[in-house]
């Protein structure tokens, strides 16, 4: 989403909380090479903080014993890692073939209008961020929208209105 070349520094040290620390230690035993933990560690970070900061990249590199550049490389290559904070509700609309055929554009247009932001942006109050993403693998129930990771299938503007109304 948007600029994937810049890391943001929080100015605060980062470390895993107890739960993520335990999961990190469980997983690292499963791989013969420690660098295999780069993707899982980025996921653990994002689960904990919602996004991945410059401090987190350095911390992961230290924990694994690798170069920060290798962690950075993965954080930027894989588009699901957020390199800055998303909205409280992060909305992903699938833009690919089957969803496109079943009018995903109506959903995108509605959201742009309703929230007042373009895909790739976050609303000023921080409540919403919007993203158009590639095929989400729910083509049989297109169009599909993912809000904070949860799938909503066979969407249309009416259903989306009701869904947004439920969010606090």
């Amino acid at each position, binding site marked *: 989403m948007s600029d994937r070349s810049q890391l943001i520094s929080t100015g605060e040290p980062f470390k895993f909380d107890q739960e993520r620390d335990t999961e990190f230690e469980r997983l690292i035993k499963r*791989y013969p090479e420690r660098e295999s933990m*780069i993707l899982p560690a*980025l996921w653990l970070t994002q689960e904990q903080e919602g996004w991945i900061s410059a401090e987190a990249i350095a911390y992961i590199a230290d924990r694994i014993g690798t170069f920060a550049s290798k962690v950075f490389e993965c954080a930027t290559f*894989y588009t699901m*890692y957020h390199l800055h904070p998303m909205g409280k509700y992060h909305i992903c609309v699938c833009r690919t073939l089957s969803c496109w055929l*079943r009018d995903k554009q109506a959903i995108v247009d509605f959201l742009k209008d309703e929230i007042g932001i373009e895909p790739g942006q976050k609303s000023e109050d921080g409540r919403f961020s919007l993203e158009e993403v590639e*095929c989400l693998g729910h*083509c*049989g129930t297109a169009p599909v929208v993912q809000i904070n990771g949860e799938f909503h299938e066979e969407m249309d503007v009416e259903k989306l209105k009701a869904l947004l109304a439920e969010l606090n």
Partner: protein
Amino acid sequence: MEVKILSAKFDLEDGHKLEIAKQHGAYGTLDKLFAMKPEEVIEEVKASGLRGRGGAGFPAGVKWGFLPKGTGKPVYLAVNSDESEPATFKDRYILVKDPHMMIEGIIICSYAIGSHDTYIYIRGEYTSQVKALQAAIDEAYEAGYLGDKVAGHDFKLEVTVHRGAGAYVCGEETGLLESIEGKKGQPRAKPPFPAVSGLYGCPTIINNVQSIASLPFILEKGAEAYKAYGTEKSSGTHLFGISGHVEKPGMYELPLGLPLLEVVEKVAGGVWKGRTLKGVIPGGSSTPVLTPDEAKTVTLDYESMAEHKTMFGSGGIVVLDETVDMVKLVENLIYFYHHESCGQCTPCREGLGWMLKIIKKVVRGEGEMSDINLLLELCDNIEMKTVCVLSAACTMPVRSYLVKFRDEFDAYVSEDISTAAANQE
């Protein structure tokens, strides 16, 4: 037309839970498995004619046979659950509805190939699915089907879920391996093939979720029972995903070899809203499109698709009705593949970008006839000139639309021709 081989437990309430799955036969093949020699298992799978269900359709048993013997290195199994090809949405049903069928398949495969470590690579977008899968794996460990002694037998097996994070290219075998190793998912040059040098430089077998999930049936009922479904060269059943402009889109398990249009009509309810058919994408967005005329004679198997110069692919069928603007559809496709290019090979990284710029220009109404020809030329210059087939996954279908629906592309640029002609007068 529908059959219930892989999907037998999909309709059960809580069929994903070990207790219910066991009542319906889950893990029932293990005693038979461990009484067999690994080579016998491989022979049975070869005899079944099971072909890789990820898209390439390579015979599964033959692939296993490529493993070198006596290397002294560990053998790895990677289960490909990346499922990112647009119009493909079959594997997630297995992950959520009957994960134990897949875990049983992993045990069968691991025993056959002598592997004690499996990594299941699942796409990052599958958030609820990864939780369901992990819960089933935890159950299997708890019940002793995974771990130091699989079902009490002298066979150790560890299964680890590795989450991707939004890169289509990681569905490519070696891109997937790179990703497990903690790198960007940039595919490797082959040879060496993964069977010889794969994960961590060790012999590795990579199989699709559905291929693996087909194994318990084959082992339980035998190769002949599996071959009773499908055609001679395309045996068995497949989880077809039907999407786009049909009345009843969804996932349907069918034997291979059925007539495509009959399936669209009888299984998926036909073209929606009483409209007429304009085209069918037979096996995921990377497969060349079929015109209604071509579709009349196609059957859903590898041979028929090849005869019609397209591919069975992942079995993701997309139905296009008369209203579809093929030029804009091609724009949507090129956008996808350009976005997903890993950036390693210049023809793909730059070429797909050029194609996107040109098609956008055409869509804006600023294109010329030479742009359409340039697109065709680019397809030829990009295809098969890269490390992996991602670029071909774009150029093959794009060429098919350009050739089969040329009129529509010409119409977008014809205005320009009349203007040019007027200027010359």
